[in-house]
């Protein structure tokens, strides 16, 4: 089975802190994604990556950055956390381009910024 693991289920950080959310997948997938989930808004794409060191902005990249130094690991970085970044963050992975398959998700990190 594909496994996507997020480093924390719950996280509380202070405003202005630099926050790292880590995600690891074990199926040699090319693609990795970071989504943000908010009530009434569904899941919105923050950033994605289709190869090591490659990244592209999603629909809501402001205030976030990402890092993919190794194929299996995709990190989401909040440079200076703000209260409006309090949310559920979901990492996902999928096989390479043209594979036409669904994405596999981690269990989510609920981040609270105080």
């Amino acid at each position: 089975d594909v496994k996507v693991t997020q480093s924390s289920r719950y996280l509380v950080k202070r405003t202005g802190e630099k926050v790292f959310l880590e995600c690891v997948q074990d199926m040699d997938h090319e693609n990795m994604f970071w989504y943000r989930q908010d009530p009434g808004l569904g899941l919105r794409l923050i950033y994605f990556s289709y190869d090591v060191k490659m990244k592209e902005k999603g629909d809501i990249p402001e205030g976030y950055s990402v890092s993919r130094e190794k194929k299996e690991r995709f990190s989401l970085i909040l440079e200076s956390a703000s209260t409006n970044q309090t949310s559920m963050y979901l990492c996902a992975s999928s096989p390479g381009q043209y594979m036409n398959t669904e994405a596999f998700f981690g269990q989510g990190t609920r981040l609270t910024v105080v």
Partner: protein
Amino acid sequence: AQTVTQSQPEMSVQEAETVTLSCTYDTSESNYYLFWYKQPPSRQMILVIRQEAYKQQNATENRFSVNFQKAAKSFSLKISDSQLGDTAMYFCAFMKGRVQGAQKLVFGQGTRLTINP
């Protein structure tokens, strides 16, 4: 850009009843895929069912089936003989086919489904 709309924020039915969740989408693409994901209280997103747009036959997976109306851009999920374990958030999602780079999922707002005993 593609958009996905789920117009039912919440639904509630009795155990063993049949329930239908609605989803509409907007796209100019001809090659695409549609999905229903389930997110139970554990928060783990689980794929329920997928539909390829080029297939006319509606997908089915045990008690789960879809009504795919391509011309109307509608993709509803029917759950038959509902069970308590079906209680979850359900998300409809769209994905373009055969794109260079990563194939991204575009999600609807979600429908919170509660199955009552």
